[in-house]
């Protein structure tokens, strides 16, 4: 729409003021899409615990984060539980990965979680494997060491929230590429 000189000067005055306002760094920085992407794929150089707490505290961020995890996932397990054999805990079996839980014979309160990735990506063999687990309205981000011979494992104490999330039958698990 055409503007006259006065309107234009006023519009510019407003733009200039808004620009100055926006340049003040007295606010908490928002999590950008890069931040979420790096978190989800396990490549963030920032304090991930702190960032995950922020993601979990906001419904919008949690939704964004899960969408992203879904999009970048190597494989996704929708609450499927196959019957456990001799183990006291269920095993998750998917097309591209498998999660097993093995209780330590001696230290009974420790559980080994063994992740088998059938066709690991370069990142999974060279860096790490990140799992995003959505369990009871909360996202747990669990990082496993890099895959060797298609397998990687981590030890958890009983009752830790991460282990409970992994064992939760209704949890959705995204293994990141």
């Amino acid at each position, binding site marked *: 729409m*055409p503007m006259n000189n006065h309107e234009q000067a006023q519009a510019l*005055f*407003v733009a*200039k003021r808004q*620009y100055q306002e*926006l340049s003040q760094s007295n606010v908490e*920085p928002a999590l950008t899409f890069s*931040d979420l992407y790096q978190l989800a794929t396990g490549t963030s150089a920032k304090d991930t615990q702190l960032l995950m707490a922020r993601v979990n505290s906001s419904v919008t961020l949690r939704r964004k984060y899960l969408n992203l995890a879904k999009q970048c996932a190597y494989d996704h397990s929708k609450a499927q539980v196959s019957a456990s054999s001799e183990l006291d805990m269920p095993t998750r079996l998917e097309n591209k990965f498998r999660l097993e839980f093995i209780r330590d014979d001696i230290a009974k309160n420790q559980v080994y979680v063994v992740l088998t990735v059938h066709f690991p*990506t370069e990142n999974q063999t060279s860096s790490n494997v990140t799992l995003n687990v959505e369990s009871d309205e909360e996202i747990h981000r669990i990082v496993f060491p890099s895959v060797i011979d298609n397998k990687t494992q981590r030890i958890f104490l009983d009752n830790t929230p991460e282990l409970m999330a992994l064992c939760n039958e209704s949890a959705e698990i995204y293994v990141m590429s």
Partner: protein
Amino acid sequence: MSDTEDFGGSDELKSIFEGLKQTEFRARQTSVSSSYKYRDKDIDTIKKLIVCRNYKDQCHELSYLLWAVVNSYPNKQSKDSLFNFFYWDEITTEQRFKQAFSKPWTDNAGKVELTEKVLHIEVGNIHFDISPSRIGVLSVLVEFIATVDHSLLTQAQTCLFSASDNERKAFSNTIQRGIYKFIKDGNHLPTVQHQTRYQQTMSWLSVNNLSLDQVNDGHIIRFWQDSNQNAAESTNASCVKFEQAICDVIDTLDVNYATQAQRQVEWASSISTGDDIDEIDLDRYSSEVSESLFDACENTIDIDQLRKNPKCITNDKQATIAKALTRFSSPVTSRFFLTIMRLHVFGYWQNQLIQQQQTRKGQSADILNTPPQLNYIDYEQELLDCSNAFELSSKALLHIIYQHNAVFVLPEFIKRLNSHNSALKQWLYAALDGDFTHVKTQQAIKEAQLQWRDLGTLLSDFRKAFNNNDRQGFKTLPSTEFECYLHQGAYEALTKIMDQLAITQKKHADFAQKHDLNEIFASDLSIFTSMFTYLYGDVHADE
């Protein structure tokens, strides 16, 4: 609507821009330490586009880049080429951009090819070129869009795959609408309060029959006094700080000068084009003249960052001066030197009073009875201290930058060399034109030092400044060129402040020669004391 909602940019928008600044590259196996992904300059460009609501051209350009990425960029890490390009491979620099498109691509849908200077894109039979230097700004725009509404990226992936130019165009409009909707729906850029300030200032100028060129330091004080008088008479206005009054006047003058300049440009071009000179839209206007307006008066130098890493500015006084210099660096301000000095001395006093009033009611009289810590002669000394401290920081920065980017330092040698050594200067100019790499430049300088001692003296001067500086960011030399970017940014910002400081010092010296500073200070003290007593003194009297 509350006051806070109707002022400046929303906290959410502010926080997005702050988030963009703090965004880092993803952690890689090869380099442990990460660094900022986007340059401040590019973020500021996007910020300008957003406040001017003028992002059409950039969306247009971006849609071509996205088209090229979606169609020609291999998707290694994830299914999505866009994620690969912007988030996994993180193509945000010119160098990476060139690598990314090094292999030409052709298909029925079009063609993507990197020529010597540009990325040449053909969508159907429509040709478009993007310069690799644009990747900085465009990647910030992508991050902004993705942060605001990340479904746009997913849409881009599907809409632009094998898309015709019409489909590409439609998507460009979708991005534009997405940004517009975000700003409008969230009321992220409220305008009313700023408009009021502008209108009040304009009407004061007209009531007092003042033209733009007539306004002087004395008028600014009167404007401040009158604004407070008006605020006292109105029920819902709060008192106006001296600093705010200055900003109102200077910003008003700035934008009016800019529109005048624009009008002249339009008038000149209208002779040939026959345009109606009254029809100037902000879009066209912003891209032409406002660029210089913003550049001249922008507050983009992040003083807080310069106090953190690398820590170039060390104490509060330095920060205050630096802030004032960058805040008021528009060409108009040069005639308000006295006002800026007043702000430094009495603005600080006013802040103390306000603070006192908020925390310990009734104590303002104590401050009112004690004159400000500084007078106008002390101010000169402070400017000098600052200038010396900044010079040392900048030398130390140059030492650091020289280790990874000697080409960057070449012009600095020329600037800092004594004027009589013209042979060396000519050699340096030739080296600059030679378009050398970092290693080659360093080698050439090493050899040149044998011939010209001045060069060696300069370099050892830089080293000395670095060795004597153990503040944050100066303790160790960065190990990669990447980490060095931070220091380059800081150097550029610091140089801007130092240039401004030099101008101010010169003005101060000229002014002090012609006037008795003590006399002016005494008279100002009485003006400000009476005004502050009027504004803050009553609280004490009531108790």
